[in-house]
């Protein structure tokens, strides 16, 4: 990156002044790196390609991705932009809406606030990964049966949260559903159908289990 690449050249404060005044805020966001350390990651790769961060390995849906990232980048953006898995959605960027929910070692997390570095060595599961080899996950089938989605944008987060809920609690009460699902906002108001979908999926998984069938759950 050179200054000459900018389309504008404008006078102003010196870079060092700005960095000093803004440093505390940057540190809050990154938690991992100082600006000076971040700078050392900008190395030139063989072939002259500029490196933007460092190479990390992320295991997403069972597949290992070797990615060149600034390790402070939230996992959401690495999943979407670098791994190319766009089923996980950006909604708010501050863990308020849950559209970005993925599983880290089976637990639901808001990927918009988890630094990519924090996911190294863990199993990352996204909406694209919950489908079994054949057919649909019981939650996905229940979502179709109840015709849950409207615009559909939040549904990856809803489904990932519901899958995690049912894995931990095969027959959740309404209060359990409230506790597990109230972090995920649906602007279309599909909550009543989500509740029914969770109960339907729970029943399907329970029936399949009782009958000794393979459970897609």
């Amino acid at each position, binding site marked *: *990156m050179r200054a000459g*690449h*900018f*389309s*504008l050249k*404008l006078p102003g*404060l*010196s*870079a060092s002044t*700005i960095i000093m005044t*803004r440093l505390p805020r*940057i540190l809050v966001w990154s938690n991992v790196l100082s600006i000076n350390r971040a700078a050392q990651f900008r190395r030139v790769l063989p072939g002259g390609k500029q490196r*933007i*961060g460092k190479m990390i390995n992320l295991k997403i849906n069972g597949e290992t991705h070797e990615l060149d990232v*600034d390790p402070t*980048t*939230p996992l959401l*953006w690495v999943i979407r*932009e*670098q791994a190319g*898995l*766009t089923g996980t*959605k*950006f*909604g*708010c*960027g*501050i863990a*308020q*809406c849950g*559209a970005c929910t993925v599983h880290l070692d089976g637990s639901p997390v808001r990927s918009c606030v988890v630094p990519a570095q924090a996911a190294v060595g863990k199993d990352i599961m*996204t*909406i*694209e990964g919950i*489908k079994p080899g054949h057919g*649909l996950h019981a939650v*996905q089938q229940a*979502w*179709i049966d109840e*015709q849950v*989605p*409207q*615009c*559909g*944008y939040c*549904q990856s987060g809803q489904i990932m949260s519901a899958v995690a809920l049912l894995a931990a609690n095969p027959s959740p009460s309404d209060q359990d*559903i409230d*506790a597990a*699902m109230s972090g995920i*906002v*649906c*602007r*279309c*108001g*599909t*909550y*009543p*159908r*989500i*509740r029914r979908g969770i109960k339907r999926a729970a029943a399907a998984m329970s029936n399949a289990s009782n009958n000794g069938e393979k459970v897609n759950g």
Partner: protein
Amino acid sequence: MGKWTRRAFISAGVLAGGVVVFGIAIRPGDRSDKVAGLIANDEETVFNVWVKIAPDNRVTAIIPHADMGQGVHTTLAMMLADEMDADWDLIEFMEAPAHKEFANYALAKGYAAGDVDFPSWLVDTVDGFFLTATKAMNLQITGGSTSVPTTGQVGMRVAGAATKAVLLQAAANAWDVPASELKAQKSIIVHEASSKRAPFAEFARAAAELSQPAKPSLKTPDEYTIMGTDVQRFDVPPKVDGSAKFGIDAQLPGMKYATVKASPVFGTLVKSIDNSSIQDMAGVRKVINLGDAVAVVADGYWQAKKALDRLDVEFEQNGNESVEQSDIFSQFATDMDRVVANGDEITDFSQGDTNLALTSADAVVEAEYRVPYLAHAPMEPMNCTAWIHDDVCELWTGTQNPLGFAAEVADTLEMDISKVQLHNGYLGGGFGRRAFADYTIQAARIAAEVPYPVKLIWSREEDMRHDHYRQASISRFKAALDSSGKPTAWVNQYVEKYDPEEAPHIPYSIDNQFIHYAESKTHVPWGFWRSVDHSLHAFFTESFIDEIAFRAGKDPYQYRHDLLENAPRFRDVLDLAAEKSNWGEPLPENWGRGIAVHKSFGTVVSQVVEVEIVDGQVFPRRAICAVDAGFAMHPDGIKAQMESGIIYGLTAALYSDISIRRGAVAQSNFHDYQMLRMDKSPEIETYIINSGARVGGAGEPGTPAIAPALVNAIFNATGKRIRELPVRLHDLTREDLGSKDVA
């Protein structure tokens, strides 16, 4: 006919014309040739711009509307398939390309700007009702709950029936029998006398050569086989496995990412940008001054966002920097007082003599209500991917008006519209927001500065602070009651009118009425917000009628019922909602029940809400909804839209306010613009009436009545009358709120 005003043109809801006019789908001249290359391959036969048939007998409905969750692709395909007597299992859909044969933006835009009148040949074609369809079809807009009432009723059904007619005629010609002896059954043409049967596809080519009837006869409801059933929506499977592609999901080789910051105070320009603070940041490509906003382009969104947050940008001042929300409400009140003092009221509706009735009244009831600005806050923040290459500007986004957006980009870049190609994805919520092209224009302008594709994503903060907002407003009422408590006069003054124009009108039989308004412009940009003006006026009018009922000592349901003697559709939905809610049955302590009824976009809705107040917090526990849309084309779809409208409306009523602080929007994200969540979502029951009235919309009519039903329920539970939204602003924890309502 008279010149259509811009207000009427952009209005979202003056569609309830009263007459269904057929024949719009099949206009003179064969238009399908012009789009055949865009919508079909060589194997497929295109019949008109709405339908094509493949050799394997698949029928594709070509839908000129965006799906933002309302299921319109499915419902419109049902309407086409039913009139064709097609096999639903062989029906597919495609969203129409942004092409002028699916719309006529240039004509419409000229008309909207007052530059041109519609040419007489168009007016003559359909007696002026073309205009009704124009808003949905020629503008290619999805909004105003118009898709089913217009595109469906005068487009899809006519196209389906006309296609079936020529298919039967082609078979009749080949088999040498009268067409009247043929019928279609599940995409098969049948001649019972000779036991001849053939799939549609066999006669598709021959049929396409025949002239299609412009006004084919359409089915009556007793003949429907697909309309009125609960088919599964086309868009659900891809929305449960992450494969549905929204605008934000566009991916192109070599693509970079951009994010923007516009002046916090609306309408001011960038004064200076100091980029020295971000020169060392990895992956940052470019800083672009867009005049009223700054864009940073980087290798990823996060890098662009971090750089933009660090960038020093100074904006000009335009005099609005000191405006506070309280100033805006003061301005409204002053303007309202002034027009009354000067006799400058703008009349909305007037009948009888309200002054006389007030003078001779036994009692006069007055009240003033306020509502705040509201943001749309769809879950998918505004975004658009743009790529300018080979003299073409390609756009990937989610829009309620693809052709309009393409035209605005063409205007901005000074390109021919034929060189702008817009690819519309699923919309992660629209609610009116995605009818405004600002984000798409920004993306195109950024793309014009770089040699690669660029995906512009707004942060949630930008989305919240640069929306086009539902207006804030004040509404004042005065009613005269006679000795029996019956209203004899209804005077209503409010501030700022948009659309639809009938939104403040009431269905109640009150002899003397004067409804008027004052204009009072602010610097806050306005936009269509789910149900538009109905979203505020239903709160105003249905709160006030409740107050009158209380003053008259009457049950609020019975009081409404008695005043709806001349409005049977309203009375029927009101009665049904009351019945299903067990109106009048006692509720537990700290619970309350409220009712409201309102018509919008041709559909009448009545809702009853039951609330529980726990430690001052309002929990809507149950919502009962009765809806008459004339005929429910897709009953489960209508139920879903009622559920959606209720929760959208409850969110606004309970929590939402966009307030202006120092000229800018104070809120920024979901922590300070809160959403109704699972734990406070009520159980919802929806009951449908098929009255046979002209078919109305479904996407918006679920929203207006829920806010008044909610505050009426809170009043019933606590005795506290909430006259300013959102409810969150009011303290409901005190125990001395007042005596409980009689209801």
